């Protein structure tokens, strides 16, 4: 095959594609920080930190829109095909997934604010554990993106089962608390919402992993039909 003797004719486009991925990863870090802060603030009853999470979601939204605009510009200008096209479509999907995960973190921040200074019904153990696992899934899915690693992407959904199990556990525990003391129904419901948000983050990370598989193979795959 005739190979280029001169410089890569697509050098500028390749540079833009790399910069786009870097920005996608930066959005991933913002979202990860939001989840961690939101759950720590919920556990520690740190309302100032919760307010910060809610406020900073605007930056996540703006970042997503700017990523989307760049992808649209690159599609219009570069008219990408094959793996270039898949890279851009994947970036578009992943930016939406990340922004949505950011919304879940914001949701947990708002739940914390709604709880206000009501006394906690129990020390939080499983919810922070769910947060840890969902953050790990998010990281793995983005790691799979960087490495273009289909096997790693396929593994992401395994952790989702653990999150789902924890969610079931939290649900049962909170139900018992509510049955035992109707005074605690409102506060228990708040925690149930938070747990549900974390469960959804796992599903969104699975979506990201599916996008990575599409990027590499060109095939649309459903890694796992979630229980929820």
């Amino acid at each position: 095959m005739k190979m280029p003797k001169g410089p890569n004719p697509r050098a500028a486009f390749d540079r833009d594609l790399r910069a786009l991925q870097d920005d996608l990863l930066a959005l991933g870090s913002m979202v990860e920080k939001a989840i961690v802060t939101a759950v720590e603030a919920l556990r520690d009853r740190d309302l100032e930190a919760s307010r910060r999470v809610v406020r900073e979601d605007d930056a996540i939204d703006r970042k997503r829109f700017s990523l989307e605009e760049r992808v649209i510009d690159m599609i219009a200008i570069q008219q990408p095909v094959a793996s270039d096209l898949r890279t851009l479509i994947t970036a578009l999907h992943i930016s939406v997934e990340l922004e949505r995960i950011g919304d879940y973190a914001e949701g947990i921040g708002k739940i914390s604010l709604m709880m206000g200074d009501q006394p906690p019904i129990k020390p939080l153990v499983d919810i922070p554990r769910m947060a840890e696992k969902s953050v790990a899934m998010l990281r793995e899915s983005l790691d799979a993106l960087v490495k273009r690693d289909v096997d790693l992407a396929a593994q992401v959904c395994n952790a989702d089962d653990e999150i789902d199990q924890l969610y079931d556990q939290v649900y049962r525990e909170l139900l018992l608390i509510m049955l035992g003391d109707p005074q605690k129904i409102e506060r228990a419901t708040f925690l149930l919402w938070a747990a549900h948000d974390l469960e959804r983050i796992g599903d969104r990370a699975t979506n990201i992993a599916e996008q990575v598989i599409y990027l590499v193979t060109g095939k649309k795959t459903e890694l796992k039909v979630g229980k929820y």
Partner: protein
Amino acid sequence: MTTQTQADTETDIALQARGLQVHYGEFRALKDIDIDIQRNRITALIGPSGCGKSTMLRCFNRMNDLIGGARISGQVTFNGAEIYDPSVDPTEVRSRIGMVFQKPNPFPKSIYDNVAFGLKINGFKGNMDEAVEKALRGAALWDEVKDRLKSSGMALSGGQQQRLCIARALAVEPEVILMDEPASALDPISTLAIEGLMLELCSSYTIVVVTHNMQQAARVSHRTAFFNMDSDRAGFLVEEGPTDEIFTNPRDPRTEAYITGRFG
């Protein structure tokens, strides 16, 4: 999409090449080509300059016979019949498999005579006015020229001249139209007009188009064949498949490298 039986699929092949090789003197321009051209579909031949895609196109209607030193081996069949069989008249082949060239090349004659030319040569006995109108309508040119059929074909715009050449090809009622970069000399609007026309025509004709414009191949064709050149500069077919698959997820990394512009 209707489900087709295997037998139906086989009869839907208009042109077929097997083990096709083309030499120009000592130089081997094409080697080991196996390709099926589906009926009533537009097949685009893409690939870098010198990969033999125009040579491939010319093999389909024995246009290479006109090039001194050209030598063809292997098989090319049209509706199942070998077109290089000694008993076959190449003129007959070319009337059933027409060609449109890169640069519009109307004859220095009237619009009417340009279209009627092939029919007259073939000793057409029917109603010439009707045949000319039908061909011009087929090429989406009638409304623009119906009031000046006697003016020179050379006076038309580039895009109109190319449609006149398409009308000239249609007049003899071919089954296949071969197009060698039919829009590369045209402005973007005329290019889109030609592409729209191709899509109209493919319900009645089989079209094979050579194009350097990959977006054009993506827009206009149903199937895409990617040709490349080996180290001995002989052209060969890398892969052929549905256009949407070639442009979203090609099987061969060489196709990927070419269509994404990573080598030229």
